[in-house]
């Protein structure tokens, strides 16, 4: 049954919201176009201070030294996101279906290559684009691929070893920060001589945590889906 008056209202509402979105978009576009072409950012200041940071790549210097506190909190955000998924997680992962020969053999070739690439990105982060987030992302992707190819070993990490791996990055950051404070300096102020080593250690720990967190997010969602289709399929259609 159609109600012509309601149809008109719905059309008006749609027109109104389209108009509102268009206006906001136009305003934002105008603001963007009016921005100065040469940004007045802190790039010059970062370059000037780079030698004392322990990193040759300005992005790494910003992420792990100048604004290391932001990165510390971002790693906490990642861990917290996993805990949020865990609060909604129910049930166990089903046995995998047969992935097929192609996927299985491809995965067995690609996984070691990805491991090497992740290691390279982690190391390169000191002087070129790269670093913990990229390396952790690739490691996690390798883990996801192995799970999809039917390998069981990414899931073998569980219990307290899993928990330690999850908190390693954030713990390392906190330990370094507190050690410096107890030594009489500001939180996360690395001594210039040891900065490169500290950054490398932090990046390694962060890579491990990021990889394990991302991988476990994937596994947790898989588990959640497996349990939903088992028990509450009638309530919660995908």
């Amino acid at each position, binding site marked *: 049954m159609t109600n012509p008056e309601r149809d008109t209202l719905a059309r008006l509402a749609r027109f109104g919201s389209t108009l509102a979105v268009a206006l906001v978009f136009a305003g934002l576009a105008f603001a963007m176009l009016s921005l100065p072409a040469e940004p007045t950012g802190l790039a010059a200041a970062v370059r000037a201070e780079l030698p004392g940071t322990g990193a040759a790549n300005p992005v790494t210097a910003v992420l792990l030294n100048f604004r290391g506190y932001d990165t510390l*909190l971002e790693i906490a955000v990642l861990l917290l996101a996993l805990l949020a998924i865990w609060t909604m997680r129910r049930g166990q992962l089903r046995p995998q279906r047969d992935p097929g020969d192609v996927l299985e053999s491809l995965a067995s070739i690609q996984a070691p290559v990805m491991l090497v690439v992740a290691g390279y990105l982690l190391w390169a982060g000191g002087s070129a684009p790269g670093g913990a987030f990229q390396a952790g992302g690739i490691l996690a992707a390798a883990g996801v691929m192995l799970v999809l190819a039917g390998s069981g070993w990414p899931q073998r990490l569980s219990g307290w070893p899993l928990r330690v791996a999850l908190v390693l990055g954030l713990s390392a950051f906190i330990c370094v920060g507190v050690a410096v404070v107890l030594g009489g300096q500001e939180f996360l102020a690395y001594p210039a001589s040891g900065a490169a080593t500290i950054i490398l250690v932090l990046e390694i720990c962060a890579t491990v945590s990021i990889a394990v967190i991302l991988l476990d997010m994937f596994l947790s969602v898989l588990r959640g889906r497996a349990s939903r289709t088992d028990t509450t399929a009638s309530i919660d259609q995908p």
Partner: protein
Amino acid sequence: MTALEPGSTWVVWLIVSPLAAALIAFLLPRVAAAIALANALFMGVAALALLDLVTEQGPHRYSLGGWGAPLGIDLYADPLSGVLLVVAAVVVLATLFYSRDYLARTAIGPLFWPISLFLHAALNALLLSADAFNLYVTLELLSLSAVALVALADEQRAVAAALRYLLASIVASLAYLLGVALLYHTAGVLDLAALAERATWTPATWAALGLMTAGLAVKGALFPVHFWLPGAHSYAPSPVSALLSALVVKAPFYVLLRLWYAPFAGAPEAVGTLLGLLGALAIVWGSLQALRQARLKLLIAYSTVAQIGYLFLFFPLAQSRSALQGVTVFILGHALAKAAMFLAAGNMHKCLGHDRIQDLHRVARELPVTLAAFAVGGVCIMGLPPSGNFIGKWLLIEAAFAQGEWGWAVVVVAGGLLSAAYVFRVLGHAFTVDDKPVDASGAPASMAWAAFALALLALTLGVFAAPLIDLIGGPGETAVAHLSSREP
């Protein structure tokens, strides 16, 4: 880099201690509750010590990493952040003490402890942040921990409410982040005080003002973008409802307040008036909705929607110092009273097995302390003396008169009458007599007294308010200069 005097590291411990405690509580679930309570106690001590420090020595800046703004990130503490840190510690301590017995009676797992510790860390980090981008990160951490805590309730509806909260929150975060990017591109710095020095009103600044205000309004549940709040705050486990309504929802308002004194200090009056009008509508709409609710926790949640409206009355009245003082005391009073009411509602829910307002019979006889906590909290929400809310409303009315804008004063008074109506509606049902049994063992004395202690603090806040008021925008200094000042 020079060695610092010992007192100045309190800002660091206020952030690092709850983070470290969260990790320990995550690794060792058995001692999680003890760790969380010990940390909450320590947070109370640290917040008081910091408040003392900034009262003695004035606003305090701390350069993380030793770089200093604008290259590095600075933490910033002044009496405003000091008193908010103290009240956050008090509410968290009472709520976690309550949660020990509450969790023992539910299926909520030990993840509650690390996540609530993350929430406390996020809150403290936000209150101490002096950097526009760092504020974004702390808002993310705060929202995610709040969402996760809502989802802990073992109920499909709670998970749905949590996801709705998450989606609203993410859109709001992105709007805020885009605003930060525009500000950075225009001014080249992220530190709030440095932004204030370099702010010019270009189209990009206007866009940033709109985006960041809109994003923070969604996160702060300002009418009409409060749609996510009633579900999230009412379906969450009761201690979580208390944390969310008392503390989390105030954080975006606090960020907006800081922005209002730094990059957006020159915003035209019309923007402030608009925010004030939305606040006034929130007071009326939230109160009317609260009157209509059948469930107690939904009533309290809608009451929060209304009370948030009072905070936004600050913006049209920002010219007079008593507006900032009023809004600060109001935040403290509402935090204590609302936490008490949600904890009391949690007790009633546990004992009765439901929270239908119509069926709250015999609560007065079987749960006297719990009902007293709810009633005292309700009296504070109405704004009767000597509650902090009374002082807060009084100062807001004073600010309205000082600026000759009587309309805002009328809104403040009308909101008080409406809140009296919905509080008495609950009390009326609680005093009726019925034969149905009430299982008073559902809420042990510790839970009832935790709620009552908070209510009592809220009620007596007005007595301590005078020194607090002097702290905020202290004598001889305007509030504006006080908030955006940088340490020499």
